[in-house]
């Protein structure tokens, strides 16, 4: 089952396309990192998936075949928006009561236990909590609904490093305990790198990279060699991005596995997700998508020089 499936999905605000021709099939049971620069369309994609907004073109379905915003989808998806909106002048206990009244299923015991562990008193007003505590409260409310999919839109953008660590720890515990699928968006890759096992890169409203992290890392590598030979090498390989220094050049290439021989005088290194992201972001024409290829300006999986 695909937790989020999009087909030619597009969203336009006025004359600007926030998301264009987006085709994705995100499988369940994964922790999905949705990464991209500011303005890439991550929030738009997530808003479409949770039913806060309707597509301009294309279709999107969630949790298999369900329409976003339908009863089943609302029951099964818990969403924490950017800046964790809460009712600032309600107390924590009231927020729990409110969420319980607005949902068919709500695990009050879990929520109270979790907030007790975090040391958040239930009589304090939600607006008086620190940023980290507000994020933890929003996450607790979302997890207490026992959703099948947890969608988090830049949940850590206003958190300090310790709060971020605690937040991700809570998420990982929930995944281990309940088997919930998670889609996390962020423009900071480092914090997601350790936990994500599915990766989607959005840039300027289009999907550039989508796939399992293991697969992506296995079929990309960095070749380091003399700068003078870089062009000659590049003709024979599928190069995503070239980084030249005075003497050395680094080519990030796509391979079909480790079968491709390394050219003489060059060294091959495995690639990190961060290097992959930066390379693709610098080459807007390149993409790495699974399944049937959708060509844009160039043949996919080849670089545009």
């Amino acid at each position, binding site marked *: 089952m695909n937790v989020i499936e999009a087909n030619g999905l597009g969203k336009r605000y006025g004359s600007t396309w926030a998301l264009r021709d987006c085709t994705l099939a995100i499988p369940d049971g994964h922790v999905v990192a949705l990464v991209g620069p500011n303005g890439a369309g991550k929030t738009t994609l997530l*808003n479409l998936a*949770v*039913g*806060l*907004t*309707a597509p301009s073109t294309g279709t999107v379905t969630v949790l298999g075949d369900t329409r976003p*915003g339908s*009863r089943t989808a*609302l*029951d099964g*998806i*818990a*969403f924490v*928006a950017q*800046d964790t*909106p*809460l*009712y*600032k*002048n*309600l107390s924590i206990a*009231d927020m729990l*009561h*409110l*969420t319980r*009244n*607005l*949902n*068919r*299923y709500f695990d009050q015991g879990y929520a109270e236990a979790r907030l007790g562990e975090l040391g958040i008193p239930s009589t304090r007003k939600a607006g008086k909590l620190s940023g980290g505590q507000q994020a933890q409260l*929003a996450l607790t409310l979302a997890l207490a*609904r026992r959703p099948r999919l947890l969608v988090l839109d830049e949940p850590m953008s206003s958190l300090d490093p310790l709060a971020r660590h605690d937040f991700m720890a809570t998420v990982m515990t929930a995944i281990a305990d309940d088997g919930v699928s998670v889609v996390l968006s962020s423009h900071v890759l480092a914090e997601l790198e350790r936990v994500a096992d599915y990766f989607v890169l959005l840039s300027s409203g289009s999907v550039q990279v989508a796939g399992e992290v293991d697969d992506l890392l296995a079929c990309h590598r960095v070749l380091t060699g003399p700068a003078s030979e870089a062009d000659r090498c590049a003709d024979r390989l599928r190069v995503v991005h070239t980084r030249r220094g005075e003497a050395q050049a680094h080519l990030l290439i796509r391979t079909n596995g480790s079968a491709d021989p390394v050219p003489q005088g060059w060294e091959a290194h495995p690639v990190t997700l961060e290097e992959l992201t930066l390379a693709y972001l610098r080459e807007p024409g390149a993409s790495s998508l699974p399944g049937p290829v959708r060509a844009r300006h160039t043949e996919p999986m080849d670089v545009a020089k």
Partner: protein
Amino acid sequence: MGWVTWRQHRLTLAGVAAVLGAASVYLYFTGEHLRNQGFVSYGAGPGLTLTAALFQVIPPLIGAFVGAPVLARELEAGTFRFTWTQGFGRARWTIATLAPLALAVTVVAGAFGFLFSWCYGPQIGVKYGLSPLAATTFDLRGVAFAGWTLVAFAIGVVAGILIRRVVPAMFATLVAWSGLAVVTGLFLRRHYEAPLVTSRTNLPSTDWVMSEWWTRGGQPVSSSTIDQVLQKVGVSVSGNGQQILRASQGSGLGNMSPTQYLIHHGFTQLSSYQPASRFWPFQWIEGGWLLALSLLLMIAAVWLVHRRAT
């Protein structure tokens, strides 16, 4: 969901209760005072007119302060991203929020209108008193006050979802409600039922006279003709519309008033008016269309919440 609505709006509802409570206390004591003094024929008295003018602002304020923030605050503060992604769903949430608030607002306004009628009722509609149909007090009594408050609430809600910001929505509510009230008072209310036309000149002041004009032999006569006739006997004509005639001294009228003189000479004064007995039928008509409009506006608000993407 009732608990949810109460909890989220408890401050504004408390404010409304405070304002109406203060006004009710004032009305109660005024009513007691008037009754203790016996209802001498005060007519429209300055106390009633001033109070009525002040109370006219209560419905639009309730509409602005209770109705406009319901949806606008969700959108402005971003909490709709939390509330409308819960399992309850956004259309149901809107209905479940609007219904108890609308009901509360209507019931409270109805009680208030009843209290107003009790306080000033005997002063309105007595022999030389104010017409119950006059715009000063008509919409503060009976079902009309509840209707105007409910429509103000509904206008506020729709303004909230359209404008998406609380303070501009409040202003829009005040402006829209005032426009509707003025149009109704000036143009619409007089047409609820076809006005009666009579040639009697001694209509009680409790009837609502809408216009008067002179005829002769079945044909309407212009006011300049009337002027000429009267000036021949030395009467200067002042005023317009209602043709307030002032007799100058030493005119040739003798003991007759100018009106009687004209009637004596074959002119007939016709008045179109609404009798005071039509007070309740008019109340039901006005309450009825206000209720229908309110329901329409609230249904439109739910539809907009359901359809409008963010």
